[in-house]
């Protein structure tokens, strides 16, 4: 047992560092830093996406035969960690992490040829049609119907919490194609173009005032039967494959550790108000220490899962553990950041974006301006991709066999 990198891995890490040093534009890094939402907007995210795409590194989760990098799990980890340290924005997961691997694993060659290059290039922008107003945690109860009409499906229903639907030109949807069978068995996985009269996008504004999610209304929306992934009724199997990628598949600890480093720097300069800095305040120091220990342990938990995957063992429900832990650490970090900023942490600007020339002036430290909005948006971590309650149910059932 050891934590050592091989010489090849160390060389790879140097290559990644060099690339980040030369290729990550400062305005992209600044935009990511000053984004209060969970996801960066395309004006930041797509710039970075295309830089990575040109480098051939954007689809680093995909197998080589689908146009991916074919990296080992360790290379993916090294890449993500270095990106986190450099402050690169997290890429939109919807195409690269969610529907891309589904098409790789379940799609026909024609579907792969049609969709995968456009995901890599960043010319198609995807959104996810999973949750419905009446089907959140109980996803399998979804009601959006698709019926065959010649060579097309006609889709009726509504999807909700659809991240970046207002930017997307495609939506992947779970739909009910058979209402007669057990609820999981009647679900299919369809790709539906957004630019058509049957699709309406209605914004949902978060507590922080951000527009990230939407409700998508499908009223007679049409898509070719060629845009069904897998067989009719195979949607639930695909859905679960996708959800495991959504919950796992990426490494959270490097970003959390970087955020904690940042927290410590902030505490080191933030005045305590009476004497010295907040970093010298034992209560603050202990709160930071607790978070650091949690995040460091999480990093090793993630590496243990990575080692299993590298040896061909299934990761499966372990992804639920990481999702559960990382989202709560994330929220606690954002809470502490707000506390460190004192009264300045209570500003909640209504203007967006908070980067670029149009951004309103910050009160106090620049970071203080995004603190409250980020804290509020951060509440979503324990809800999206399956709430913490759902993750606990999965762990209780499949790991603990309760």
């Amino acid at each position, binding site marked *: 047992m050891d934590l050592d990198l091989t010489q090849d891995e160390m060389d790879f890490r140097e290559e990644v560092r060099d690339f980040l040093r030369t290729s990550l534009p400062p305005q992209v890094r600044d935009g990511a830093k000053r984004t209060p939402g969970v996801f960066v907007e395309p004006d930041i995210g797509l710039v970075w996406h295309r830089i990575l795409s040109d480098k051939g590194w954007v689809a680093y989760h995909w197998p080589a035969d689908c146009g991916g990098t074919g990296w080992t799990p360790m290379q993916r980890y090294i890449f993500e960690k270095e990106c986190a340290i450099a402050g690169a924005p997290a890429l939109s997961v919807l195409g690269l992490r969610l529907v891309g691997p589904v098409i790789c694993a379940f799609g026909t060659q024609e579907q792969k040829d049609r969709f995968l290059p456009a995901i890599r290039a960043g010319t198609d922008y995807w959104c996810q049609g999973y949750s419905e107003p*009446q089907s959140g945690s109980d996803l399998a109860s979804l009601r959006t119907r698709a019926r065959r009409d010649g060579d097309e499906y006609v889709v009726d229903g509504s999807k909700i919490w659809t991240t970046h639907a207002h930017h997307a030109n495609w939506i992947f949807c779970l739909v009910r194609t058979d209402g007669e069978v057990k609820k999981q068995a009647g679900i299919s996985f369809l790709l539906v173009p957004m630019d058509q009269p049957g699709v309406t996008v209605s914004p949902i*504004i978060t507590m922080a005032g951000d527009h990230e999610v939407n409700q998508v209304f499908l009223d007679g929306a049409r898509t070719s039967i060629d845009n069904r992934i897998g067989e009719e009724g195979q949607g639930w199997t695909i859905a679960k494959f996708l959800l495991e990628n959504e919950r796992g598949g990426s490494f959270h600890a490097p970003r959390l550790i970087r955020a904690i480093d940042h927290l410590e720097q902030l505490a080191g300069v933030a005045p305590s*108000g009476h004497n010295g800095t907040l970093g010298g305040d034992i209560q603050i120091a202990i709160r930071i220490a607790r978070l650091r220990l949690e995040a460091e342990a999480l990093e090793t938990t993630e590496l243990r899962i990575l080692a299993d995957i590298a040896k061909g063992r299934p990761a499966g429900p372990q992804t639920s553990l990481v999702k559960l832990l990382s989202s709560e650490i994330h929220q606690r970090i954002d809470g502490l950041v707000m*506390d460190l900023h*004192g009264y300045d942490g*209570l500003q909640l*600007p209504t203007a967006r974006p908070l980067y670029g020339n149009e951004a309103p002036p910050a009160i106090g430290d620049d970071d203080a301006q995004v603190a409250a909005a980020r804290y509020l948006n951060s509440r979503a971590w324990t*809800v999206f991709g399956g709430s913490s*309650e759902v993750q606990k149910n999965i762990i209780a059932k499949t790991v603990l066999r309760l």
Partner: protein
Amino acid sequence: MNFDLNEDQQLTRDMIGRFLGPVDIAARHAMRGAEGGYSRARWQDVADLGLLALAAPEAMGGIGGTMVDLALVAEALGKGIAIDPWLENGVLPIRLGTAIGNSALVGELVAGAQLAAVAFAEPGRRYETEALGTKAEGAQLTGAKTFVLGALLADTLLVTVAGDKLANVAKGATGVVRQDYPVIDGSNAATIDLHRAPAELFELPEAKFRRVIGDIRLLAAAEMLGLAQTMFDDTLAYVGERQQFGAAIGSFQALQHRLVECYAALEQARSMVLHTAMLDPTTDNANWPRITAGAKAFVGEAATRIGLEAVQMHGGMGQTDELAIGHALKRVMLLDKLFGDQDHCLRSFARAA
């Protein structure tokens, strides 16, 4: 011993309930979007209801409500998620005006004729209230303040000044540079830079100022109690209605136990507010800021926890700006830090114990 409301207290609570009505999110958004995020006409209604007079002594033309009376008002305003800055632009300046013995000012404030914002926080000083960075030379002020709640709306600024003084500064006076910014509950605050701004100066002995801070801490706790009650009530109703997996989610034991914990925290918070309010007449000036700091930290922790649980149990809907619980949580987050966050207040409570 008696925990029942008297007739006046019952009438006041009912009156506030009628004034606020059911939470109307669209109306809130509309008012927050308007200039100043609030309306002076509505402030006049608050004054006409006697809610400002309640905070002033009879000798200065007020009604002279007890801390229990005021805590019940704060709780009722919290319960209705009032948009009205009663605490920060009503009670706080009225109490300060009383502390400096300025009955003319108090009279104007109580009548709603003048609205004052209080500049007590300084950049880089966190929750410390000693005004080191704002100095008077003759009748001119120089210094910097931050987190001046309601400054955009105000006619006049009450500014704490080094040497235990309070200054009354006209908002539009020369040498007053104001930068307004929106804060988490949808209202506005401002930073204020003072460059030889003309001011009217009054003595504000530290003990009197700390007494006022204690009052505000307790009333912030009481408002958080009302907010927590509403977040709890809404969540209890929601888990009874929301169906997943063929049942109301409130039938799941995992949620039931968490709701019971919220209920326990809420009851404890109520006891803390009432207990502290009733101690007022028998508590000396030195101890009042301490026990109110403890009460605020205790209630703030409960209200924050209840708010976060409310958001989580509402799932995706809880993340939106369309529910009362989100608006209530954001107000809790502001009150929880007003005159000291939980750490700061617990320290005050522990240090002097």
